[in-house]
Every structure is written in C-alpha cells, then in structure tokens.
C-alpha cells in the first residue's frame, strides 16, 4: 500500500466533508423555510459525521487525533477543494447548486471507493453511500424546482452555476497521488472521476433548464493547500472555542 498517497486521499475526503459541513451549518436558522432549515442542518451534521470517520481512518494510520486535525490545523494544512470554502453570502441559489455539484461528486467517488483495494476505506465508503443517496435526492429536487420555477429563478440558478462550475471542476484537481492510488486499485484517477461526475450532473442541470459552460477553466490549488482567504476566516470562527484551551475535555 502506498501509505502517503492513501493519507493524502483521506485528508482530501475528510477536509471536504468538514468544510462543506461547516458552510452548510451556517444556514441553520436562516434557510428559506423551516422544513428545509431542519433538512439542510441535518445534512450538514451528516457531513461532520463523515469527516470524523475519515479522520479516524487517518488516526489509525498514525496521524493526530480527529479533534486535533479539525481544530488545530491552519488553512495551508487543509486539502479541501476551493468549492467548499466559498462563502455562502446568503445566496440560496449558489448554496443549492454547490451542494448538488458536491454531493454528485461524492456519490461518484463513494461508488468507486466502495470497490477500493484499501479495505477500511472500501468499508466506510459503502456505509456512507446510503446517506449520500438522500443528500443527492434532496439536492436534485431543489435544483430542478428552482431552475423550473420562474425566469428570475432560472437566471439566479444559471448565475450560481456559472460561478460554481469552475470551482466544482477543482474537486478533481490531479495530485501526485493519482497514479499510485489508481495503480494500487485504491481510487480511480481524478480525471476519470471528473468525467463520470460531469455525465451524472448534466441531465439534472438540463432538466432544470441550466447550461453548463463547456469552456470553464478549473480552479485548482485546494489539494495542495492553496485556498481562498475565506477558508482562513471560516477556520478562525470554527476553531475559536477549541483554541481557547486545546487540552480541555469535551
């Protein structure tokens, strides 16, 4: 097993889940309607749970404790993609589109990882897939409804998609781990996952009356620790309490 490549992959998975979980939790109390507020918050919690499980796998490979990984690292130590870092700006269209693009990518990835040669990851992926299934069902419904709603609705969704798509392509930023992971049968190459993902999201976006910009240039950097300023701000807010006394017992 290529240990460092597996560790790199697990950090990407864990950090993506943690940061989108935190971003989505920022809607708690603010989502458009009460029922959706509960559903959205619940899914944000799910993501935190997924992050914890990935961090536990990392810990089993000799990395620090999950709490340390989540609350005691700086932005440059994170390997999440740029898409999950972007601020919500109280823009429901953007957050709905982002969540859909992200969950669709996770679904594709988890399906592949269910067959992973690294058994602990394969086992975990199979477990997480069922929860993802609902996430995607939820996102699809919202994206299609908002896209089909009114001209104003469609335009807002189109604008959100145009903005989000290049960052979404960044979810599949190639890394040095690609080849060793693919050759060991642990995880397919990012470009392969990306094309599977693009085929998965296309029909939904089409149904919603939205156009994908085929010439979108991917925004990379997240997988090597280069992040938008928004991540540092997010971490400051998320880690504040922990940092007061890292040795405290929770």
């Amino acid at each position, binding site marked *: 097993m290529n240990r460092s490549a597996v560790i790199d992959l697990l950090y990407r998975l864990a950090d993506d889940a943690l940061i989108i979980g935190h971003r989505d939790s920022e809607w708690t109390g603010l989502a458009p*309607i*009460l*029922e*959706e*507020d*509960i*559903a959205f918050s*619940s*899914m944000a919690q799910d993501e935190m749970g997924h992050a914890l499980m990935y961090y536990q796998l990392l810990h089993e490979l000799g990395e620090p404790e999950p709490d340390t990984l989540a609350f005691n690292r700086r932005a440059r130590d994170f390997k999440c993609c740029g898409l999950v870092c972007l601020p919500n700006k109280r823009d429901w269209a953007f957050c709905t589109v982002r969540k859909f693009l992200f969950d669709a990518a996770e679904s594709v990835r988890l399906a592949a990882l269910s067959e992973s040669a690294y058994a602990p990851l394969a086992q975990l992926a199979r477990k997480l897939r069922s929860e993802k299934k*609902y996430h995607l*069902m*939820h996102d699809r*419904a*919202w994206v299609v*409804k908002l896209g089909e709603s009114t001209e104003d609705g469609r335009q807002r969704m189109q604008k959100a998609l145009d903005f989000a798509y290049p960052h979404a392509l960044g979810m599949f930023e190639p890394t040095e781990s690609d080849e060793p992971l693919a050759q060991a049968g642990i995880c397919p190459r990012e470009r392969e996952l990306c094309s599977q993902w693009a085929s998965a999201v296309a029909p939904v976006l089409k149904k919603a009356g939205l156009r994908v910009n085929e010439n979108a240039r991917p925004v990379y950097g997240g997988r090597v620790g280069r992040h938008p300023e928004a991540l540092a701000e997010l971490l400051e807010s998320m880690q504040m309490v922990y940092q007061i006394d890292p040795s405290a017992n929770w």
Partner: protein
Amino acid sequence: MTDSQWPVFEVFHQQVRGEPHIHVGSVHAPDAEMALVVAKEQYARRQACVNLWVVPAEAIYASNYEDADMFEHVTDKSYRESWGYKTPKTISRHEGTKARRHEGEDQASGDAIRQQATGNSQREEAT
C-alpha cells in the same frame, strides 16, 4: 420565519416493512416530491423508517369531532369484539390462509381463548 403559503402534506411513516404506516405529522411543501424530501429529515431522523408517505392534507375527508357520539356503542356489542380472534401476528403473516382457518376454530373455543387473551399483556390485532 413566516408561514409559507405552500400546501400542507400529512406524513405517514412505516417502521418495518409490512407494518401499517403511522401518521407522524405534516410538512409544508410546493409539491409531493418536495414534501417527501423534507419529510425524511423531519420524521425519519431518529426513528427507524423503511417507507414514507406524503398525502395532500386536502385529500383527507374526515369526520367532525362534534359527531364523535356516533361512534359510541349504545347497546351491548361485545359479540363484535375481536379479542376472541387473537392470533399471533407472526403466525398470521407466515401462514396467511392457515391462520384464518384457525380463527374459525378460535371462535369455537371462545371462552378458553378469551381467558388467555386477557392474561396476555401484548396487544395483538386480529388479522
């Protein structure tokens, strides 16, 4: 948060396949698909659930509580009660037709069964 102008859907959940769907509450939603999506997190977050129904509240035609007296039993109707027909659910489920035949026999030995039934703390429905 202001109340939405969306219609109300009543939510029914089923904890185990084959069990009845139980009414658990309601949600506001623009349509049935969305009602199901939000109902899942409202009502299946903590309890076991294998199936959810959402039904437009306006599809339900109900009696009035003012008319509740029409359900009262004025004369002795104990002969209609089902407690003499108790058969363990599992048996009825697995042996559908046989179980129904037994019920006929149960009726014949009503007294013995009735004693058993009253001593039995588990409430089981007749099928």
